[in-house]
């Protein structure tokens, strides 16, 4: 709750900057605000407070909020230049902060009304920011596609919530759970239909196949910093919401949805990884890779055991940090070279060793190679799935990650083994800080994963 209040008031304060002209101070103010929010959020640890029967800040919510806030801090380090454009500077800050407030709601809701509001508060700023390069046709396309498809998916979600309300007579997760346990034999068919419709709506938000069609276009068309936000924070929040609903509330009727999620996870893994191989545009490739990573997280959702929430938390953290690193390097390189093709990375190992090193670490982490965080993330996900007996799906996931190694290594090979006579790209100080932090986090989490894994 403290996090929600702080973030939304920070958003309002940034809007006031236009009137009271302290726009210059906004960047440090927002960074400080995020740190303060992080500290206050941690003070909710183990309190398990419930607010208005609508949100509960249990350890699950606090842990996911902390991951989101850390990633948001890194994201702000990456995107200072995005907040340079004079006209809509405060709007950008405010929208991002409101989106963060929405993600806090999504990880802590205990009521369907809050879930819906959280998803919308996160999505609407994203629709707008996807189109924030107003003169770029691709950006317009991305915003438009995201808006139309997102609204469509929200329709499914709402319809599902309505049907569940029709059957159980409540929006409250605990009461819906009670309804299931009290009527084990005669649950209404509309309740099951409601679950399926909600599944569709949420699968869209996490871009799981076959509802991933929007993701590549939207990720490619949006400004790179916004793509990074979508690939990390939006995905983490959406998965936390997904898990909270399905592994808690709908767990006892899992017969209805496990097979569907099984197929979805397998499709997401295969389609995401195989299509990523065929991309020459790095940003589009990372978009498909982010689709593929949704598949791994679906595995833990499917497992639905005591490992699941820890596994998803760790995976979301490792994946988000790795993604922020890759997107930051891509942002710097594409900014200097003018295009996002894999060829732009040629010879980066010689000209910018730091960029190349961090990119390598981040990509290895995304691919799941041992000394990095990504390895343990995948390991825990697979353990969770194994414990629940999804051996076949784990095999599919292993094969898919082998394919993944191939396209991640294409960039690494381009950086170190391909020649090109480029000069050193100048790197800003905050980008340097971010890159070092990302590399350190990836290696630290890889060496001592116990940090996060025993939290929940």
């Amino acid at each position, binding site marked *: 709750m403290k996090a*929600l209040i702080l973030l*939304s008031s920070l*958003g*309002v304060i940034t*809007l006031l900057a236009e009137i009271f002209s302290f726009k210059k101070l906004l960047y440090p103010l927002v960074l400080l605000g995020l740190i303060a929010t992080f500290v206050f959020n941690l003070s909710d640890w183990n309190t398990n407070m419930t*607010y*208005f*029967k*609508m*949100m509960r800040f249990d350890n699950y919510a606090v842990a996911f909020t902390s991951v989101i806030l850390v990633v948001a801090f890194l994201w702000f380090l990456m995107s200072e230049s995005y907040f340079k*454009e*004079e*006209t*809509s500077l405060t*709007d*950008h800050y*405010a*929208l991002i902060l*409101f*989106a963060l*407030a*929405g993600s806090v*709601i999504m990880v802590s809701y205990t*009521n369907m*009304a*809050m879930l819906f*509001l959280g998803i*919308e*508060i996160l999505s*609407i*700023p994203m*629709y*707008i*920011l996807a*189109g*924030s390069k*107003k003169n770029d046709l691709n950006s317009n396309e991305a915003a438009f596609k995201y808006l139309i498809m997102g609204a469509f998916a929200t329709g499914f979600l709402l319809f599902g919530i309505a*049907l569940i309300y*029709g*059957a*159980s*007579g*409540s929006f409250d997760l605990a009461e819906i759970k009670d*309804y299931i346990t009290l*009527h084990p034999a*005669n649950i*209404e*068919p*509309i309740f*099951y*239909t409601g679950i*399926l419709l909600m599944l569709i709506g949420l699968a869209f938000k996490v871009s799981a196949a076959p509802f991933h069609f929007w993701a590549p276009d939207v990720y490619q068309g949006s400004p790179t910093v916004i793509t990074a936000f979508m690939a990390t924070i939006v995905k983490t929040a959406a998965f936390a919401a997904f898990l909270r609903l399905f592994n808690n509330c709908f767990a006892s009727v899992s017969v209805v949805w496990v097979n569907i999620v099984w197929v979805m996870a397998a499709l997401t893994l295969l389609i995401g990884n195989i299509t990523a191989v065929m991309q020459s545009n790095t940003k589009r490739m990372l978009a498909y890779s982010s689709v593929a990573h949704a598949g791994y997280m679906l595995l833990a959702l499917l497992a639905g055991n005591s490992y699941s929430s820890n596994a998803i938390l760790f995976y979301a953290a490792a994946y988000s940090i790795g993604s922020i690193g890759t997107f930051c390097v891509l942002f710097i390189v594409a900014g200097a070279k003018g295009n996002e093709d894999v060829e732009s990375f040629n010879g980066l190992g010689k000209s910018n060793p730091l960029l190349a090193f961090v990119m390598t670490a981040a990509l290895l982490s995304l691919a799941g190679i041992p000394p990095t965080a990504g390895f343990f993330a995948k390991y825990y996900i697979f353990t969770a799935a194994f414990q629940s007996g999804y051996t076949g799906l784990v095999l599919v996931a292993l094969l898919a990650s082998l394919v993944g190694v191939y396209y991640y290594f294409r960039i690494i090979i381009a950086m170190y083994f391909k020649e090109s006579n480029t000069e050193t790209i100048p790197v800003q100080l905050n980008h340097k800080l971010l890159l070092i932090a990302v590399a350190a986090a990836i290696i630290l989490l890889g060496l001592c994963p116990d940090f996060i894994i025993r939290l929940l």
Partner: protein
Amino acid sequence: MITTYLFYFLSFLAIMFALMVVLSKNPVHSVLYLVLAFFTIAGHYVLLNAQFLAAVHVIVYAGAIMVLFLFVIMLLNLNKETEPHKSVWLKASAAVASGLLLVVLVGSLKGAETIVQVNAFNPNIGLIENLGQTLFHDFLLPFEVSSILLLAAMVGAVMLGKRSIK
């Protein structure tokens, strides 16, 4: 008794107008039929004794939003020539997918008449007083939080709308 007849009459109209929205060729006609469909749904609200909801539904949906739709359609100047042609496969798969959704929904509603009523129906639930009680008591937090949503949407609309200073 009369409410039952009214219910069937309004439902028939609602379904017919909804079909006309999809079937009519002219987009302006579609929007007008949608307005009529909204009116019939507002009638349903009145039958449920939810006058406030009915009034809001007419004012907001049939009034404001549909007028906006009409303006957009007129500004876009849609006609036959500019309409993109979809391939047969796309049309066929869309028909199959939505048909399947229809089957699922009809199948799930088939058993609906046997639903055990979890909460007894309170005929006064739709009156403004009760609505206010619910909104400002049980759903106070969502009510307050939706202000963030509206603020974000407004900021976004202004951001997209304003001209950048050179």
